[in-house]
């Protein structure tokens, strides 16, 4: 297990370095002079020169790169151009909100997906299966930036049951979590169905039935636990979609997380903050993928010996 862990950790290093390099390069993709692009055409030459110095753009590229990587090691992501405070501090302040939303969306997704997937697999080929799978296809096809406002219209405005903006108690979390979790639920329901259908064909399920177990017990106690590994793995891997979706959901529901910070920073051309948000979201994604991979190795020992 330790060798497997060490190998997976080693493989992550070049990926993280690649991510950091691409994020570093972002500011250099700005057409023309980045400092002029940030400040606009009306800025004086002195202001532009000062910003170039603040961003370190007046130094050779290699020096900038090494300084950027050095900063990352010290968790120093630079200074926000809008607020003048360290990027890291503002991101750390927003992190809990995004994690809370992501977790809630995941709970919503699993709660909807598992019963739907089980029903579709058990009644494979029937109207239940077709309805469940059409529902899940509709879920995948429905943009969350459309579902969000629709939910806000119905449950926030028409019925007045739930608040439609900001972060507070559990009631603030419901609509953003459903809006973000719906598409994920659709993907997971399809996965649940596919893996369970596969398990139901296995001889051990037939053996369980032959021993006199009811169909429900054979499905829930034997086949379903065995299909949990790929479902949990996929749920973990879907964290990327959740984090990207959070950028949009947080914007719709004025949820004070990193996604909203990113969109606001793009509007203000606060590129150090944009770089910081992109880097943090990507590193979180790589980290979660690593954890899922390691868990997979723990849950299914065959993976470790490949």
């Amino acid at each position, binding site marked *: 297990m330790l060798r497997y862990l060490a190998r997976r950790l080693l493989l992550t290093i070049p990926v993280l370095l690649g991510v950091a390099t691409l994020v570093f390069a972002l500011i250099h993709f700005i*057409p023309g002079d980045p400092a002029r692009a940030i400040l606009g055409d009306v800025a004086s030459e002195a202001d532009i020169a000062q910003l170039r110095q603040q961003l370190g753009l007046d130094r050779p590229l290699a020096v900038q790169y090494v300084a950027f990587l050095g900063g990352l090691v010290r968790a120093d992501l630079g200074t926000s151009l809008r607020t003048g405070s360290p990027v890291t501090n503002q991101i750390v302040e927003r992190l809990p909100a995004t994690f809370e939303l992501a977790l809630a969306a995941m709970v919503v997704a699993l709660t909807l997906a598992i019963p739907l997937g089980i029903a579709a697999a058990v009644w494979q080929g029937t109207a239940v299966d077709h309805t469940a799978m059409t529902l899940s296809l509709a879920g995948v096809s429905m*943009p969350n*930036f*459309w579902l969000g406002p629709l939910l806000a219209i119905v449950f926030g405005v028409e019925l007045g049951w739930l608040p439609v903006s900001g972060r507070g108690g559990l009631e603030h979390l419901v609509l953003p979590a459903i809006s973000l979790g719906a598409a994920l639920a659709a993907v997971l329901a399809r996965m649940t169905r596919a893996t369970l259908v596969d398990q139901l064909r296995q001889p051990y399920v037939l053996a369980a039935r032959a021993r006199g177990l009811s169909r429900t017990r054979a499905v829930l106690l034997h086949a379903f636990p065995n299909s949990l590994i790929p479902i949990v793995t996929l749920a973990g891997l879907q964290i990327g*979609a959740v984090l990207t979706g959070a950028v*949009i959901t947080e914007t719709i529901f004025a949820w004070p997380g990193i996604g909203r910070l990113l*969109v606001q920073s*793009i509007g203000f051309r606060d590129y150090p903050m*944009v770089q910081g948000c992109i880097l943090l979201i990507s590193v979180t994604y790589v980290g979660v993928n690593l954890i899922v991979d390691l868990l997979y190795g723990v849950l299914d020992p065959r993976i470790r010996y490949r």
Partner: protein
Amino acid sequence: MKLVGALIVGVVVAAAIAGPWLVPFDPAAQELALRLEGPSWLHWLGLDELGRDILARVLTGARVSLLVGLVVVSVSASIGAALGAIAGYYGGVIDEVVSRVMDVLLAFPGLLLAIAVVAVLGPSLANVVLALALIGWVGYARVVRAQVLQAREFEYVAAARAIGADTPRILIRHILPAAFPALSVQATLGMGGAILSEAALSFLGLGVQPPTPSWGAMINYGRAHVLDAPHLTVFPGLAIAAVVLGLNLLGDSLRARFDLND
């Protein structure tokens, strides 16, 4: 399901092409006196915040969405298929380099890199296509690489090599056709993904810029009027969901037909 998918996509394509002949209104023409008016016999889907006909704008938006989808899929599939085939066929250092670049791009969740690229390059249709193709090619490259790795060991490929066929010929005539089923499924689903992504970027104000209608931007502007005029948000969203659902149904049917795994 395949029929339903094809039908939905066919209707959207036909409506996008015939849009100007179907609706007698200019998508940019404003009737300010009637702004935010709901659906009526004259304006089937109502009017937006500037008194523009929503049906005319949804149909013009369909052209933008389909165009972005087609261009992104064509560019991504061409680059992805070429790089995937070369990496899979030659292996070694070339495969290592392509695979590591793919690993880094895959480390960015979903749309995030596209958001970042458009944020620095500036919002425009061309930059949206560039950003989506930049992340889009990886999916095609993975599919083709995996297929090529398998196909290069087949006897008919060895036979082609033995009779003196050169590498480009082996790749194009003998190996790539084996990857076609997987590629076509990826392209169909990828087109839905590209349309959704364009709409998401436009929703965030990073995509197609006004006055060109875009479904995502229409939903964004409609958000300010969810209380008094929900039709501004509902109809463009329905259009996105319908076309993406059609493409997903089509992609799923193709996958089942070619017997590929989910």
